[in-house]
């Protein structure tokens, strides 16, 4: 390793990006200003459902500083597309109602875009927006999914239904027969609460248009700039890629909510072209609450069949998933291919059937939020497994271990399409029990009891699929894009290296982890490696960062490009050292000829590649710059065990997580410090879902949780320290053996928390509680059980 310091795979290297963030030198979208920039304010619908009879902008247009006001009548472009086509059980394609960037005669959710006001200053734009008169006919709103599914008020009149699709997986007849023949059937009704991602940086955009070249530039808070370029350019604005540059600079968190192509991006880009002037828009937090795509929101009924020994015989699931008012970019895939295909979990359930109905409502769109579908599947499974254990008088650990896929059964084909490549669920369970000291729980519980408190212990043994994904498989399942990733390794003449990756880092630390991969392979010190991401004019192509795919797909693409660099460098070195490539070894940045003292440093090879005086010019071209696209053969399958301990004050319902242990199998770990950080953050969001967070609409479609005073974000004093460890099985189908770690925390943790809460409340006879288990809900559950 360079200078004797390990900066390669497995080293907890401190992050390259931290210096700029810690000194206030990060460049987020709102930090960017363009010469002559104007400011935009988006006038939004105050109603969840209304017909627009007219918009009078006369007074507003005459207000101080106003540059332009545009409404839907002005902006006649394509609509925002959905990236995944789902087919209903009858073979018909899902309903895809138009999603205009600016409302066309109707608004369908609170915050829907009605007009854009562009002025010399933001305060002028806001003041002018106050003068716009919109004549609304307020219509009844449909907010509740069950009511929406039944018809009545329609979100989109012309499709005649609020059911977007009615999709199934598995053979219903087989599952019904297996359930009928089961010794016991456990039933559960479960709600996965609606959440708001709340990345700390609100969405923002700065658009620009260059009259001389005809090129549009959009700086935007996105997790996938190339995807935005493709969707906005091809579907909404008809701007070809070579005239459209998307830059995602430093982005302050995403958690899924910044994957999607948002209306404001298209409106700003279009308006910059109209005005030939840069325009800036930054969401206020209340706008983020109203308009960022939200997450989860499933209502599910399920039946789990068991034989007399507690072995699972069948699982039947009926789920309604809220789509909101329009289909967001990946919305349709979340409750289908990212949810129902995970319903085997880490268990050997032989037959599974799921029916998912996606429902339109007059609420903001719902799409992927950290975990996306997999937390919903995990929550369902881990709750119903616990319930079954209780009903069959089995220990919750015993029922799990009786049903685990054994570690020697891989590759394992599930009944719901996926084939798991590797895992050892017993190993993660055992390690978690040791770390958590579950053996000491009884004593801790007795101690709490003596203080009048109720202690509970809850398990979640989860599995997820990530590293999205094999393009052919995704395409067969309805994806309208490929899901490969690309990387370019540009070795400069003096031996420093720039990596171009199509993934995007918005907190994950790619500038460090990816540099470690390069350092490990080429022996180049970290300070001589630059990771470039987020700019479509610098990076060749990419599908971006979501689904824990950056390392498992983008990192492997980088590994492939490094293979090519190493192979070419070896030919150059072999030529100069007058040896055959077979005799050459490459270690710690040096090519050596086996059995001799002949050697050449990687930097010297780089120089030779650009100054090819003594060079195998007949065989290879000058230069040292290689690119690779990697399309994985399968998803990756992280899994693990989360154990949560809660202490409840039965007098008040106040619930405190006192101990939390996460043992995850994320495959090979490149930077343990960063991986632990990802798990901490995911678990915090999972605890948030279980105990604190919920997006609530009133029956008129008004968002009641529209600020940090109403939506309960986890704060430092709501959370415990989190114990994190790994038990590793390697991914068998990628060259790094990596699986992905970004979502495991948010996927595994919520059921562990709720199972702990229910365990704590056992003495009171409480058998169910909804997320978030707030003090009021816990207290009420205790009172109801007593009554």
């Amino acid at each position, binding site marked *: 390793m360079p200078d004797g310091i390990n900066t390669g795979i497995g080293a907890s290297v401190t*992050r390259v990006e931290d210096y700029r963030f810690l000194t*206030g030198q990060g460049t987020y979208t709102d930090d960017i200003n363009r010469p002559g920039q104007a400011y935009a304010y988006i006038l939004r619908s105050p109603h969840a459902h209304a017909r627009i009879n007219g918009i009078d902008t006369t007074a507003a247009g005459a207000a101080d500083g106003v540059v332009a006001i545009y409404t839907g009548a002005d902006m006649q472009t394509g609509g925002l597309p959905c990236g995944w086509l789902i087919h209903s059980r009858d073979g018909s394609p899902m309903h895809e109602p138009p999603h205009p960037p600016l409302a066309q005669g109707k608004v369908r959710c609170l915050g829907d875009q009605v007009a854009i006001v562009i002025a010399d200053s933001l305060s002028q734009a806001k003041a002018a927006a106050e003068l716009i008169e919109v004549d609304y006919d307020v219509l009844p709103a449909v907010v509740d999914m069950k009511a929406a599914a039944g018809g009545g008020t329609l979100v989109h009149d012309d499709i005649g239904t609020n059911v977007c699709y009615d999709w199934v997986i598995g053979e219903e007849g087989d599952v019904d027969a297996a359930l009928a023949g089961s010794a016991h059937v456990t039933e559960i009704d479960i709600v996965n609460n609606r959440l708001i991602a709340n990345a700390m940086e609100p969405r923002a955009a700065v658009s620009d248009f260059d009259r001389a070249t005809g090129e549009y530039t959009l700086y935007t808070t996105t997790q996938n700039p190339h995807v935005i370029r493709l969707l906005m350019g091809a579907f909404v604005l008809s701007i070809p890629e070579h005239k459209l540059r998307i830059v995602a600079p430093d982005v302050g968190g995403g958690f899924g909510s910044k994957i999607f192509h948002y209306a404001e991006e298209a409106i700003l880009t279009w308006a910059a072209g109209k005005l030939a002037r840069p325009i800036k828009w930054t969401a206020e*937090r209340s706008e983020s609450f109203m308009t960022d795509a939200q997450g989860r929101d499933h209502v599910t009924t399920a039946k789990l069949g068991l034989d007399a020994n507690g072995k699972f015989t069948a699982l039947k699931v009926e789920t309604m998933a809220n789509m909101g008012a329009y289909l967001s970019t990946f919305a349709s895939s979340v409750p289908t291919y990212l949810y129902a295909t995970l319903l085997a979990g880490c268990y050997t359930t032989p037959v599974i059937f799921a029916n998912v109905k996606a429902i339109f409502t007059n609420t903001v769109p719902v799409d992927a939020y950290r975990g996306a579908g997999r937390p919903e599947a995990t929550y369902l499974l881990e709750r119903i497994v616990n319930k079954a254990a209780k009903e069959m008088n089995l220990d919750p650990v015993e029922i799990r271990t009786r049903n685990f896929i054994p570690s020697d059964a891989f590759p394992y084909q599930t009944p719901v399409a996926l084939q798991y490549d590797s895992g050892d669920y017993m190993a993660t369970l055992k390690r978690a029990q040791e770390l958590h000291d579950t053996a000491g729980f009884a004593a801790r519980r007795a101690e709490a009891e003596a203080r009048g408190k109720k202690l509970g212990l809850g398990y979640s043994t989860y599995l997820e699929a990530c590293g999205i994904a094999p393009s052919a498989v995704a395409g067969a399942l309805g994806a309208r894009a490929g899901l490969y990733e690309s990387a370019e390794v540009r070795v400069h003449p003096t031996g420093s290296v720039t990596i171009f990756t199509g993934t995007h880092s918005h907190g994950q630390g790619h500038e460090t982890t990816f540099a470690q991969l390069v350092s490990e392979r080429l022996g180049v010190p970290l300070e001589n490696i630059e990771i470039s991401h987020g700019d479509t004019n610098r990076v060749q192509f990419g599908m971006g960062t979501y689904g824990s795919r950056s390392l498992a797909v983008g990192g492997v693409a980088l590994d492939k490009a490094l293979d090519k660099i190493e192979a070419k460098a070896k030919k150059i070195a072999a030529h100069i050292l007058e040896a055959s490539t077979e005799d050459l070894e490459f270690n710690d940045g040096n090519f050596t000829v086996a059995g001799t003292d002949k050697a050449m440093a990687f930097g010297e090879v780089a120089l030779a590649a650009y100054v090819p005086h003594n060079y195998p010019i007949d065989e290879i071209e000058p230069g040292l710059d290689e690119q690779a696209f990697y399309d994985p053969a399968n998803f990756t399958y992280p899994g693990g065990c989360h154990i949560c301990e809660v202490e409840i004050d039965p007098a008040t319902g106040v619930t405190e997580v006192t101990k939390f242990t996460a043992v995850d199998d994320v495959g090979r770990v490149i930077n343990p410090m960063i991986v632990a950080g990802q798990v901490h953050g995911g678990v915090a969001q999972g605890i948030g879902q279980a105990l604190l967070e919920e997006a609530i609409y009133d029956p008129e479609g008004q968002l009641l949780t529209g600020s940090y005073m109403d939506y309960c974000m986890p704060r*430092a*004093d709501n959370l415990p320290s*989190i114990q994190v460890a790994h038990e590793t099985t390697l991914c068998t189908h990628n060259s790094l053996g990596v699986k992905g770690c970004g979502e495991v925390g948010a996927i595994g943790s919520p059921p562990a928390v709720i199972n702990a809460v229910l365990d704590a409340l056992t003495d009171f006879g409480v058998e169910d509680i909804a997320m978030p288990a707030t003090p009021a809900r816990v207290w009420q559950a205790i009172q109801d059980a007593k009554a």
Partner: protein
Amino acid sequence: MPNLSMTVNGKAVQGEVEARTLLVQFLRENLDLTGTHVGCDTSQCGACVVHVNGAAMKSCTMLAMQAEGAEVTTIEGLADGDTLHPMQEAFRNNHGLQCGFCTPGMVMSAIDLVNRNPNPSEEEIRDGLEGNICRCTGYHNIVKSVAEAARVMGS
């Protein structure tokens, strides 16, 4: 528009602002000190915390005019050349930041916390950071960072 002068990061600055200008707007827009962030509109998130006359202050809760004549320190003013403040160094050593957006406010709040309580317990750190929201880290490594910085700052 009223004139305004104050000391920011040790330098005398002045500017013309509308009376309604918030301190955070003056810092970001007039002085181009964009390290101080705006993460909410209800003074809940703490991304905008700076020091005003040595004490942590949410710069979105204060008019720029109210800082007339004050000594203001922002995240840009903490490091001594290339030498990071012990709190910045501790955040780096302990992976106390991910996306970096809450970080400036978090660091400024944490310094004030340690200034007021040089030897905080884990519980005191968690309580003391209640006014700063982080969505990435789960606070685990932030708490470790503050504890380490407190040890360094006290020695």
